[in-house]
């Protein structure tokens, strides 16, 4: 178990710069989830921590020790790959014990470690099989087993569940959470999946274009996104945005959209009157109300079974609404909505959150 300290890490491939100075302190036993769009450098960061990729500049410390120049084998870190990367010519048991054999662990110790991990993951009946004789879910488990047998300082996961079907993913997600509850191992987990990020993380790190946008608990990021990127990235269906001109008259503030519609917004000292600002509201926070202040034309209804996603437009400005109200399956051509003031997020000209 270990803390990981990342200071001003940069990475370039030739002249192409991927990470532009990442700082991150991960506490002992913490579960960190890295999210961000494809190509933002999540895997690169993970591989640098593992030692598979050179560090262009900056420092990585594990338990206070600088590991920049340490080979992967000397970092005592385990990694679960998206492709699982099981050794095809070895049995499940051999796959799991390989790292211990390389460390010349005593035979009895290997047997008990493999046995323990196999029991934890329900792999007992599969130990003699080759990876190709396993289903995707079983392979995934073996990859997890291979990581946990040797009790490393930290676990790295690079989209470990993305090759599984939805049902299995849900199940493995819960198992990973349980495993972390048992082992309390420092973990860094890369995913594209909103729910994985929200459910697993102690803290989420949202990245975009090689820069960390926000670090915080899942609810921090959901309730108080630091900028437009995080606001749009976290949450599904994604947050609605309205860009307009921030105007103040007396103690009333409003946002005038390009099409002339004005939306009342809370007054914020952080925005100059007359400046461009963006208002955000999550689809689940829009209130459907027969006496609502705004009229919205209904464009499309997407029932999800659990709830309903309504695509509407307010004077041609599109907006999504999420509701649990079954009556909205057939809402008619238009509905009236309210945007509750306490649910609004305001972002300044640079896209930063303004309180």
């Amino acid at each position, binding site marked *: 178990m270990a803390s990981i300290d990342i200071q001003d890490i940069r990475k370039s491939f030739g002249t192409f710069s991927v990470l532009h100075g990442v700082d991150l302190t991960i506490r002992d036993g913490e579960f960190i989830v890295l999210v961000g769009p494809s190509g933002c450098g999540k895997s690169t960061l993970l591989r640098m921590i593992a030692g598979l990729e050179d560090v262009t500049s900056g420092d990585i410390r594990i338990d206070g020790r600088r590991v920049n120049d340490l*080979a*992967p084998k000397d970092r005592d870190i385990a990694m679960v790959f998206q492709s699982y990367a099981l050794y095809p010519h070895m049995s499940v048991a051999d796959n799991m014990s390989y790292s211990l054999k390389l460390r010349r662990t005593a035979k009895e110790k290997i047997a008990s470690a493999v046995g323990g991990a196999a029991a934890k993951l329900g792999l007992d009946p599969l130990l003699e099989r080759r990876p190709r004789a396993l289903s995707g879910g079983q392979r995934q488990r073996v990859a997890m087993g*291979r990581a946990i047998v040797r009790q490393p300082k930290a676990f790295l996961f690079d989209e470990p569940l993305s090759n599984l079907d939805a049902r299995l993913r849900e199940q493995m997600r819960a198992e990973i959470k349980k495993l972390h509850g048992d082992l309390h191992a420092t973990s860094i987990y890369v995913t594209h999946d909103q729910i994985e990020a929200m459910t697993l993380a102690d803290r989420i790190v949202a990245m975009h274009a090689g820069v960390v946008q926000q670090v915080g608990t899942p609810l921090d990021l959901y309730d108080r996104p630091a900028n437009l990127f995080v606001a749009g990235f976290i949450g599904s269906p994604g947050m609605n945005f309205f860009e307009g001109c921030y105007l103040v008259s007396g103690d009333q503030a409003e946002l005038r959209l390009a099409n002339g519609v004005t939306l009342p917004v809370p007054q914020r000292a952080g925005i100059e009157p007359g400046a461009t600002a963006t208002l955000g509201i999550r689809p689940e926070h829009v209130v459907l109300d027969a006496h609502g202040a705004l009229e919205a034309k209904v464009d499309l209804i997407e029932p999800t079974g659990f709830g309903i996603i309504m695509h509407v437009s307010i004077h041609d400005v599109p907006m999504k609404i999420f509701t649990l109200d079954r009556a909205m399956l057939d809402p008619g051509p238009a509905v009236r909505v309210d945007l509750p003031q306490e649910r609004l997020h305001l972002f300044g000209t640079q896209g930063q959150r303004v309180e």
Partner: protein
Amino acid sequence: MRSKPFLTVAHRLAILAYIVVALFPLFWLLKVSVTPNDLLYSEGVRMWPSRATFEHYTFVIAHSAFPTFFKNSLIVAGSTAVAVTILASLAGYALSRFRFRAKYWIVALMLVTQMFPLVMLVAPIFKMLSPLGLTNSLTGLVIVYTAFNVPFATFLMQSFFDGIPRDLEEAAMIDGATQFVAFRQIILPLTLPGIAATLGFVFTAAWSELLFALMLISGNDAATFPVGLLTFVSKFSVDFGQMMAAGILALIPACLFFLLIQRYLVQGLTAGAVKG
């Protein structure tokens, strides 16, 4: 999908025709090798002589220098195959996995070596080897064959390494292996088909090489089998029966060798066709 019977039959017939065409010369080799000398020209063109004999075989084995040629060939082809495969595995791995500065130029140079007709190189190579005492020696042949086969074998091995996901050795390195240990314990076992293919390819190439063997070797002691075959050609006649018998015998090691490696070879030729 059920295939149509007509197509299946046509398909099988086409394969059969191909096999017949490919194997007929071998059959003829066998036929001549068992035809007694007195019947060779007297019976006209027949599929099988009216009387078969093994006398050519016994003569070739007992009274000619053929066993020496055979042994020499075995040594040369075997050593070349092993040397080339070791070099090509290491070089192919490096080309597949490492980035290094001169990589582009090394690849280009290796391609260039494949562009010359070998005949052009006979004289300079002879000139280089003779002061080193490597003409008329099996070692010299092994060196020359190895040099000529390494580039192609390297590309062959590289393509096999390219087919093995990089994740595997990265996983091994995280598990605690050095890059070399990962290569030896994880990657190499997965490349066995490639290694078998390379061994087979180089072995046959060296086994049947004539040009350099002819130019670099004089005298029977260091002659390989293709050169040795020419001893059956005398000024006034060609002893076809003995020559063909020797030819049949020379096929045996190549056949045995392929029998030995074919399990891996078939895997190798289909490797990468299916993900999994």
